[in-house]
Each structure stands twice: as C-alpha cells, then as structure tokens.
C-alpha cells in the first residue's frame, strides 16, 4: 500500500510536469487560433525556434539560463511580427483552408531550415548546475528541473490568464475577435492589436519550446511531430478559452503518464482514445465557446 501511494505521487508529479509543458507550448496556439481565429498550424515552428535559441545561447554563447529563456521569448516574438506583416496578415478572415495551406507550407520551410542550420540530430540542453539533480520531498526524489517547470509555468499561466481575462487589453482583444468592425468603430486599432497578440502567442510558443527543450527534444521534425499534441490540447480544451486548454493539458499529461506507468501496453494510443471520447461527448471541447 505504501509503495502504491508512493507511485501515485510520482505519477501525479510527472504527469503535472508533462501537462504544464504541453500547456505552455500550446497556449500560444490557443491565443492565435482561439482568440484571433487564425488556424496557425505552424505554431510548432515557433516553439522549435525558441528551443534552438535557448540551446544555442546556452552552448555557444554561454548566456545564463534565465536570460536565454527571455531571449527565446523575445526573439521569436520579434520574428513573428515580421512574418505576421508579410504573410499572416493577408489571410486574417480568409477561409480556414487557405490558412491551413499557408501554415503547412511554413512548417515544411521551417523543418528544412532547421535541418540545414542545425543538422538532423537532436540538440542537447546544457542546464545550469542549480537546475540539475534531484529535489527531495517526503522521502521521494524528484528531478529538480521538472519542479522548476511546474513552478515557473504556474507563474506564466497566472499572468497570462490575468492579462486576457482581467485587463483592458484582454477585453479589447476579445472585442476585436468577436466583432472586428464594431471594435474599430469605437477606436480600437485592431490591426496593431492583432500584431501584438500574434507576437505574444508566438513568443509564448518560443518560451514553451525553450522551457520544454529538455523533455520534448528539439530537432528538425519537431513542428510536425508535436502538432498532434498541440491540436489535441487546444481542441479538447475548447477554442476561445484559456482555462480549457489548461485543464485539457493537465488531464492529458496525468492520464498519459498514469497509463504509461501502470498499463504500458496501452501507452501509445490511450491519449487518442481519450481525445475521441471527449470530443464525442463535447464536440466544442471542455470549455469551448464555439466549435
């Protein structure tokens, strides 16, 4: 019984850490797709780029870890503004198929660029000394980095939540999405607002990719491989909500981990069955406002 309780704790812990990572990487997509209504399948490209920024600044330039994290957020946000002006902006309000075609194209270009620049091997993350090793709690050891992920992600999530749900900026974004023309007519510069929001979403992706680089390996096919997970989180959580994807990511993280721990035979496909079942039950997702 004691050992069962112990394994329950470690499953909960690892599931939580994995779920947090899933959420931090996916929340950007939930912003562009859910709030702005843009089907940005190339989300993983930004996450991957964030991972590469972190890995390169740590190993090549010896930049301290916190600064490297900040760089992966800000650089990716900046680059995404350029992309937004050049490409994305033209397809706001276009039909989803066109958006999908554009962003799938960006994925392939991103994959090829990554392979040319960094090669096909995955990039090792050189964590600083204070984030390595184990963290002892209640007689069990937990990997220190995962403890850090859980704490740091909670802060980010809290901040983001507050920003979108409780600030005037959040209200303006939601207004512009729901009724663009009306928002403009009361003096909201929707174009600039969307650019900023897009940059935030992409920057979050970059940060998530960087934060998770130690767990979800950074290598060229990252955007394609992880796409399924982002989409699952966002669609199970429901479009247009920030709370939904959070619950969905935790649910997936914990059940996936539990399944792999206790019934590994089911490990590979449990997550898909759960997704199908959830979407049959609630087609709009757990907290979806629209399907």
């Amino acid at each position, binding site marked *: 019984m004691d*050992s069962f309780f*112990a*394994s329950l704790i*470690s*499953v909960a812990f*690892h599931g939580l850490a*994995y779920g947090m990572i899933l959420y931090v990487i996916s929340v950007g997509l939930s912003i562009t797709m859910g709030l702005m209504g843009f089907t940005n399948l190339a989300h993983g490209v930004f996450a991957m780029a964030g991972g590469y920024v972190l890995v390169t600044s740590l190993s090549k330039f010896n930049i301290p870890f916190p600064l490297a994290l900040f760089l992966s957020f800000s650089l990716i946000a900046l680059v995404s503004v350029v992309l937004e002006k050049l490409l994305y902006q033209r397809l706001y309000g276009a039909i989803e198929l066109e958006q999908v075609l554009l962003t799938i194209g960006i994925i392939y270009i991103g*994959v*090829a660029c990554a*392979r*040319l620049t960094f*090669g*096909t*091997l*995955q*990039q*090792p993350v050189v964590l600083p000394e204070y984030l390595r*090793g*184990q963290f002892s709690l209640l007689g069990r*050891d937990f*990997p220190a*980095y*995962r403890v850090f992920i859980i704490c740091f992600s909670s802060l980010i999530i809290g901040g983001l939540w507050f920003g979108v749900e409780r600030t005037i900026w959040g209200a303006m974004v939601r207004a512009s999405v729901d009724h663009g023309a009306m928002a403009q007519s009361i003096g909201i510069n929707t174009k600039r607002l969307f650019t900023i929001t897009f940059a935030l979403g992409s920057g979050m992706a970059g940060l998530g990719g960087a934060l998770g680089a*130690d*767990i*979800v*390996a950074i*290598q*060229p*096919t990252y955007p*394609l*491989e*992880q796409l399924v*997970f982002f989409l699952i989180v966002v669609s199970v959580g429901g479009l247009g909500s920030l709370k939904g994807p959070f619950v969905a990511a935790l649910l997936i993280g914990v059940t*996936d*981990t*539990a399944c*792999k*721990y*206790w019934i*590994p*035979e089911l*490990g*590979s*496909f449990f997550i898909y069955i759960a997704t199908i079942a959830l979407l049959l039950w609630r087609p709009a997702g757990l907290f979806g406002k629209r399907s």
Partner: protein
Amino acid sequence: MKFLSFMRLGAVVSALAMAGMAQAQTVKIGFLSSYSGAAAAQGDQLDKGVKLYMKLNGDKLPPGVKVEVITRDDTGPNPDTAKRVAQELIVRDKVNFLTGFVWTPNMAAIAPLTTEAKVPFISMNAAGARIMNNAPYMARVSFTLWQSAYPLGQWAAKKYKKAYTAVSDFAPGHEAEEGFIKGFKEGGGEIVGSVRVPLANPDFVPFMQRIKDAKPDVIFGYNPAGKAASGMMKAYADLDLPKAGIKYIGTGDIVTDEELQGMGDVALGVTTVHHYSAASDRPSNKAFVAAYRKEYGEDHTPGFMAVGAWDAMDAIFYAIREQAGKVDPDKTMELLKKYKSTTSPRGAFSIDPETRDVINPEYLREVRKVNGKLANVEIETIGTAIKDPMKEADKKK
C-alpha cells in the same frame, strides 16, 4: 546541401533518360533511405556512407562499366511509401540492385517485390531477423538483434541477478527482448519485468519510473537509435537511476556513436554489445573514421548505420566486378552468399550462405572518456563470427 545533390542526381537521371542512352554497361542501384520524417537523422547516416563509398571507390569497376545510384526517400517507418518507391525503382528505373532501409517494416514490405521481380536487395540497417526466410533475393550486411542481445544476456547473467527489459514496441524490439531474456535466463538470471515503449513517445520518464520502482540490478534497453536513444538516456539520468544502483546495458543502438556526445556524462559506464564502434582502433576503422571526418567535418562521427551503408555498397561492387558489369540476379545472389569482407570498419565479416544473413564480429563495449570525449570503448571480443542465434534457435525447433 543534401537537397541540392539530390536534385542534381535527379537531373542526371532525367538527362540520361532523355538522351535515350540505355547503356548495357550501366548498373543501376536503387537506394532507399529516410530523408524526411522523424528518422531523417538515421537516414542521413546511410546517405553519408553511400556517398563516401561512391566518392572513394566509385571507379573501382571493370573498364566500360558504370554505376548509377538512384536515391529515393521512404519518409521513415512507412511501409506503404517504401513499397511504392521500390516498385517505381523496379518498374520505371529498372534497377539491378535495391539497397538501403533504416527500418525493418519497410524491408518487410518490399520482400515480396524483390522475389517477384528478382531484384537483389541488401539491407544496410533494417535488422528484423525473419524477413529474409522467404525472400531468396534478400541479403543483409548490418546485424540482427539476437547477435548482440543474446550474448549480452549471457554476459549479464554472470554479473547481475535481476533485470528489467525496456524495448521499443516493434519487431526488432521484440526480438532484442526475446534474445536478451533467453541469454539471461539460461545464465540463471531473473527477469523482474518487461516494458515495451511506443515508437512515437516524447517522454520516457513514466516508463523509467516504473522500472526504478521495481528495483532491478540492471536495465536492458533497445531502441531504434536516434531520438529514442537520447530520450531514454535522459530519463535514466533525470530520475537518477545510477544513484539508485541500477545499471543500464543494451545493444549498441542505445549509445550510438553519433548521438553519444549529446547524452552527457550519465552515459559513462553504460555497457553494450555491438558489431561496430567508431572508437575502435582497428586500422580499417581508423582509416574509415578519418575519411568520414575529412569529408563531412571534424565534429561528425560515423555510426553503425554509416558502416552498414558502406559495407552494402562494397558487397554490391563486389558482385558487379565478379560479373564484369553484366549482372544477373541469380548469379548475384550466389556471389553475395560467398561475400567476405576483410576491410570493413567493423572488422572481418561475411554473409552466411545458408541464410543470406550477416555473420558478425561482436564486441563488449563500455562508454568511457577518451581525450575528453565520450566513446564506446571495445573491452572484449565476444566472438569474431557470430551467426544469428535466433535462426540457429529456430532450426532446433
């Protein structure tokens, strides 16, 4: 760069086709590897091995004979695509040889094609042992899982009492698991648990936690190299299994030479059995590694897949030379059955005339630091000519 040379190759092929010059003396080799998808890193090793061989030995042919390599992408463990491109190579390009494949499922998918079309195929890596039983035009120069897993099991039984196996959930993984368990149990060891990890799996920690809680003396691991190898090593480190006194052993795939540097010091002391290590000081290997680094850069290390590609090309060139360029599938297979290499980077090896499978030297290796870099140091030769123990066991049934 690879894309460019691929395009150039395509241009050459189409130029030849347009000129209508179906030269009798041109031998065509269809080369299938993974250039896109999750396995591009492994496919890259095959590609580099083939290109290096062509550059250094591509002209060692009888007068008037030319070799043309037609490269195709199988996109990863994707049997449907593999079958389609192989079919195109056979029907449209009329290739005389097929070779390549990182992945066992792909090789299994084209086995009936090679039999029907009588096109000899040589596996550069794909290791699934039983595929070739009913495919008389297939041969292999890479390895089988039992060749390393079975002797490793016997060795481990002398040192450890309780083992836990963790393999990737596809045919070669199952074979590695069976081979190790048989060897380990025969030596008196006890298997306290087995887990099969899905191929598409980002986080290995839950599996490793399960193993840690079972408290074995040693973990036997197998995965198809690449990302999975690094992921598993990372989980081994993250949960600090070395501190819990749990050792990590496996086939050479878990610490491939090209990924090893990225794994970090946690890999130190990991013991594996395999047929190739880039760190070996055999003269044939030193020359190979030097040529490889000269071509691709000092920071590149060839892994066993690059060696598989190199040796497959050597076997094909041998068959072409022996027939003076007029290749016949049945004669080719007879020749391949007699193929013996003394110049391979892995040391001397041959093809078993009976099964067309490789007879390998196998080495016990340990990860150590050599000149500040991690390396698989060969500490013992387990055998110089090991036939696939699985087929030997099958025979007795």
